[in-house]
């Protein structure tokens, strides 16, 4: 499998997990950025740059991690 397909598949399964667990995540991590990897929340912060730094300090490649913002107020766009 090529690298891009591998990345797409890995994040796809995390997106699916995020979708399935969205209501619980909303209760737990309101108004925060969350990083998800292999169907687990691996870190959380109110500030994106701080979260990125924490992930990098742990040796994570942030470009390949799913990061979502959980908004308290519904985002209608």
């Amino acid at each position: 499998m090529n690298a891009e397909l591998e990345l797409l598949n890995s994040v796809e399964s995390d997106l699916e997990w995020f979708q399935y667990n969205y209501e619980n995540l909303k209760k737990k991590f309101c108004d925060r950025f969350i990083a998800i990897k292999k169907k687990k929340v691996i870190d959380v912060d109110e500030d994106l740059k701080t979260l990125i730094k924490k992930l990098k300090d742990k040796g994570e490649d942030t470009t390949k991690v799913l990061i979502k913002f959980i908004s308290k107020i519904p985002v209608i766009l």
Partner: protein
Amino acid sequence: MKIPLRIIEGKIFVNTAIMAHRYHIGLGQAEFIVDTGSSETFISEGTAVKLNIPIGKLPFEKHVKMAGSTLELLKMSDATLFFKNDENKSEKIELPFIHVMQATKKDIQSRTAAQSYPSILGTDFLIKNKFSLIFTPHKNIAYLERE
């Protein structure tokens, strides 16, 4: 060829892999909201931070309004997007450029708000790449289709 999309909270998401060698951006992940109400495709400031895109080095292109805020669109040349199709293969789309959004106001509150905005796949992308959007929300069906 079809690209399956995901409906979360009524919004249509597409998962992509992106790279831009000119800016030393290796393969990274970015998801976009497919938004037919937007004429512009852009990478959000939050995604740009995540992907280590050198925002400060990108040339300014124009100001736009989004949700009442004025934002800057910067121009990132020569980007490649990869999508997964319905046959579990990757589809590569070369873009001569893609916009990267950043907040006009530099205070912490505006910056944090801008970083929480999603990346948008707008009608410009659909038109240029000849995609149709098929969206049947009551059946949870959404995909992009190209002949």
